[in-house]
């Protein structure tokens, strides 16, 4: 019987201890003084055990490439005599058509607004000696280099053109945005100007589909050659000098 009493005492004592252990941990316990940002060393607050714990977090980022296009060479229509005989042009049909692939210059053949293309009198075209070569007039197609951006499975990049206000201008043979097609002005002496329009391209895998005109960008960098047509403008009188313009070449997937 006395043993039973002892067991009861022990049980009550244990229950008491259990009750103490379940009492809430002292709220807002005073923080200990492990240096901020470290878990080095033991708790030196006088308490037992450590007062900090660490783990490793993970983070990531992904850099995506972007297409870029840079001008290697500007479009140049080459040398010509003063158009329209030095007087005011009357019809706007004088032209120089610059071939993107070969750089050769041709003309539509209309004769009202005349443009006489100049070339090197002693140039050797490889065929007729120094007979002069119509393609030696200092002209050059534009060359634009597309780099980076071989993203995912994309194997085509589309080339488009716009004026300096960002208005889309047509490719040669297209008439979707004719209102913008005379917006690119090559301005020279006395603010006289030609227009540049009817752009063409030559590049690896050049072709067209419903989305536009594209090149194969499987291998980068990709060089895109650009041709265009220079036209006289009604009422303009052209003096000798240099005529220049800028325009936008756009590349997209």
């Amino acid at each position, binding site marked *: 019987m006395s043993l039973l009493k002892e067991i009861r005492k022990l049980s009550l004592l244990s229950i008491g*201890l259990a009750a103490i252990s379940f009492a809430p941990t002292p709220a807002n316990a005073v923080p200990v003084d492990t240096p901020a940002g470290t878990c080095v060393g033991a708790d030196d607050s006088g308490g037992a055990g450590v007062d900090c714990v660490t783990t490793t*977090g993970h983070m990531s*980022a992904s850099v995506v490439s*972007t297409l870029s296009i840079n001008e290697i060479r500007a479009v140049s229509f080459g040398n010509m005599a003063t158009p329209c005989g030095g007087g005011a042009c009357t019809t706007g049909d004088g032209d120089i058509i610059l071939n993107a692939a070969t750089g050769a210059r041709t003309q539509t053949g209309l004769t009202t607004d005349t443009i006489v293309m100049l070339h090197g009198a002693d140039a050797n075209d490889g065929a007729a000696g120094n007979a002069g070569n119509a393609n030696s007039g200092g002209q050059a197609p534009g060359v634009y280099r597309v780099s980076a951006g071989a993203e995912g499975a994309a194997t085509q990049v589309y080339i488009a053109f716009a004026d300096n206000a960002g208005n889309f201008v047509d490719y040669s043979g297209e008439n979707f945005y004719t209102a913008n097609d005379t917006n690119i002005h090559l301005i020279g002496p006395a603010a006289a100007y030609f227009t540049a329009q009817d752009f063409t391209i030559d590049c690896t895998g050049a072709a067209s589909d419903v989305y536009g005109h594209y090149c194969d960008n499987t291998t980068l960098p990709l060089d895109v050659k650009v041709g265009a047509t220079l036209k006289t403008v009604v009422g303009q009188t052209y003096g000798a000098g240099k005529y220049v313009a800028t325009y936008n070449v756009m590349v997209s997937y």
Partner: protein
Amino acid sequence: MQTLIWRYLLPTLFLVTIPFAAHANQIYELRSLDFGAFAVTQPGGARRIVIDPTGAQTTPDGGLVIFKNGHNSIFRISQLNPATLFYITIDPSSVVHSSTTPEFEVDTFTFDPPNDIGNMIHTDPDASLTIRIGATLHIEAGETHTPGPYRGTFTFLINY
């Protein structure tokens, strides 16, 4: 007699010992921190991508295009005592690494709930708490980063 011992004494001993054994604190990373997929469209200047603790993403300096949004990091802290006061710090040397240089620097870690040594937080009555973390990724001026994935780690410390 043996019946009495099994019925009363042993259960109370367990009641005494179990609560103290439970004080092994645990931290679980439920979700990693991600700054998303982006391209630098205006190279040259210093750029930042900021993920706040709620997961919102901003590019305060512009010059970037975000192709895929990032997200915050989430940690679950458990098995501290209920109402334990603590605060969080991050090892300042954390960076996002890659196999090539330059790397990205990451700093300005922010927390939800906010906390620091002067503004400590405490665990819930169930002795746990969920912490959400944001940070700022830096693209230094003049640096060019090779396209591809970048990975990094940071050290998450709880002082209590």
